[in-house]
């Protein structure tokens, strides 16, 4: 303060103004978040831009030709293997998100409406397996579904089957089961949060006005929790499309997904531009699918009212 007083009047004015600016909320807030923001820009936004750029280039053995081309997208969208992998990945991730949401909803409802004092204990109990290594959870399904695995040896021990079944492991069903288990906790939390926000007096009002419990659930609770259902569906759908570990460990030949093809392009096949185009295509399609899901759930929500 004394330093500013020593300057000439105009200088004092600008300095005061600059100080005011520096101490204003927006500037301080932005300055504080800028290191984290920059980190995300450099290690997330920039890399994604680089991937998009690569998807328009061509690989020539060890060098990359930087003339613009759509050839990679043509290959990604029309070559049967990539098209099939994309479809399968979308099918698996849609099925998994449908199952996780349907299985998770009653749990979220139970904790929110009947959890009583133990709400956070329940949530903790349900999220704990999620914090254990994803790789290990997938591995445990391999142990369960394998030829010499838990399920086969158990069923044989009980005399239900005579010889181990090969139908359990190495197909897309195994991938769906494993992913549904792996993402279960992710679906519960957003639904729980939106159920917590449902005004209980509205449910009471519906009951008082003669709606049965099922009707009041369908017309009040369920539509009001739609935002949670939407985020649950998205938070499962988007990452599972690009899952790599599960198809690799339990998918076998019939359970391969697009991420495995992307990895191959950056690894053995060494065709970065094609890998980039596959990544961009996956991201675009999953965005479209996510958008469609949001619209469908919103439409259902409106219908229910």
């Amino acid at each position, binding site marked *: 303060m004394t330093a500013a007083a020593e300057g000439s009047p105009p200088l004092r004015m600008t300095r005061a103004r600059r100080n005011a600016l520096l101490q204003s909320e927006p500037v301080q807030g932005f300055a504080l978040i800028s290191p984290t923001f920059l980190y995300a820009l450099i290690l997330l936004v920039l890399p994604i831009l680089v*991937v998009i750029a690569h998807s328009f280039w061509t690989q020539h053995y060890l060098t990359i030709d930087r003339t613009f081309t759509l050839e990679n997208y043509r290959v990604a969208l029309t070559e049967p293997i990539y098209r099939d992998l994309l479809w399968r990945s979308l099918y698996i991730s849609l099925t998994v998100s449908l199952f996780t949401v349907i299985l998770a909803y*009653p*749990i979220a409802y139970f904790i929110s409406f009947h959890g009583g004092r133990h709400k956070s204990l329940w949530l903790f109990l*349900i999220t704990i397996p999620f914090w254990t290594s994803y790789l290990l959870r997938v591995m445990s399904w391999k142990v369960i579904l394998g030829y010499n695995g838990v399920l086969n040896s158990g069923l044989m021990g009980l005399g239900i089957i005579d010889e181990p079944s090969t139908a359990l492991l190495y197909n897309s069903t195994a991938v769906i089961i494993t992913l549904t288990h792996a993402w279960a906790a992710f679906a519960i939390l957003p639904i729980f949060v939106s159920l*917590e926000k449902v005004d209980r007096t509205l449910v009471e009002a519906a009951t008082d006005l003669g709606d049965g419990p*099922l009707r009041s*659930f369908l017309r009040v609770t369920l539509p009001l929790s739609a935002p949670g259902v939407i985020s649950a569906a998205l938070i499962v759908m988007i*990452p599972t499309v*690009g899952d790599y570990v599960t198809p690799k460990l339990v998918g076998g030949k019939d359970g391969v997904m697009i991420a495995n093809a992307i990895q191959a392009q950056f690894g053995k096949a060494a065709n970065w531009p094609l890998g980039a185009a596959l990544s961009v295509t996956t991201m675009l399609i999953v965005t479209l699918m996510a958008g469609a899901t949001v619209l469908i759930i919103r439409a259902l929500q409106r219908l229910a009212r």
Partner: protein
Amino acid sequence: MRARRFLSGGWLSVYAFLYVVFLYLPVIFLPIFSINTAPTPKFPLTGFTLQWYADLPHTPALLDAAWNSLKVGVSASILATVLGILAARSITRYRYPGRRTINGLIMAPLVLPEVIVAISMLLVMLQLGLSLSLFTVVLGHVLVCIPYSMTVLTSGFEGFDRSLEEASADLGESAFGTFRRVTLPMVAPAIISSLLVCFTISLDEFIIAFFLTGTEATLPIYIWGQLRFASKLPGVLALGTLLLVASFLLMTVAEILRRRAARRTQNQGGIYA
């Protein structure tokens, strides 16, 4: 009448119980077969042994991987928590345009397919001429840890009574002094909770480490390599069990601390809200 009973607690609690069983059952098999004498995981169990655990310390590659994981986990959790503190503080304390967009961007790794995050970082690092090492793994882990760190920290910072800081400033403390003597003690549990959460994530993270590491393996990468050999399975199960226990303990402590932090600032929520 039946519908009422169905929607009331009775049936739902049975379902909830079955669901928890479904969540835990697969994970429980790892410890069970890690103390079984048979090298293949099948029923009936053949006998109790700690042999698979006893072999672990005699595997040099495993010890290297464990040491690497520790280095990566500690560096990533500290960096992610520092960046998380700055961002969470900015988000909870200040109002400015673009705040939501920036927050959305920082949280984005949570909902992006991990493979795509990993390969795009790989491309940039190779373009920049960075050679792949544990350092590049740390960079990647920090990016995926920040969203979790933010979630834990915002729950600790939110509802934080700003008048306490103002009082401290009015009483003549500098901005830094206020932070060190008023803010920090209030939010310390949240910070430790964030460190533990980030360490656990880094310890268990596979995809990003798989793409961004050079020749040095972390524990999940070591496990991945061992999975190819059926004969190595019991050792992997034993190691996996130890990792499960470590994750479980770290997360339990983190949750207790987070709740304490939330109680200090009289705020509910957190990872679960």
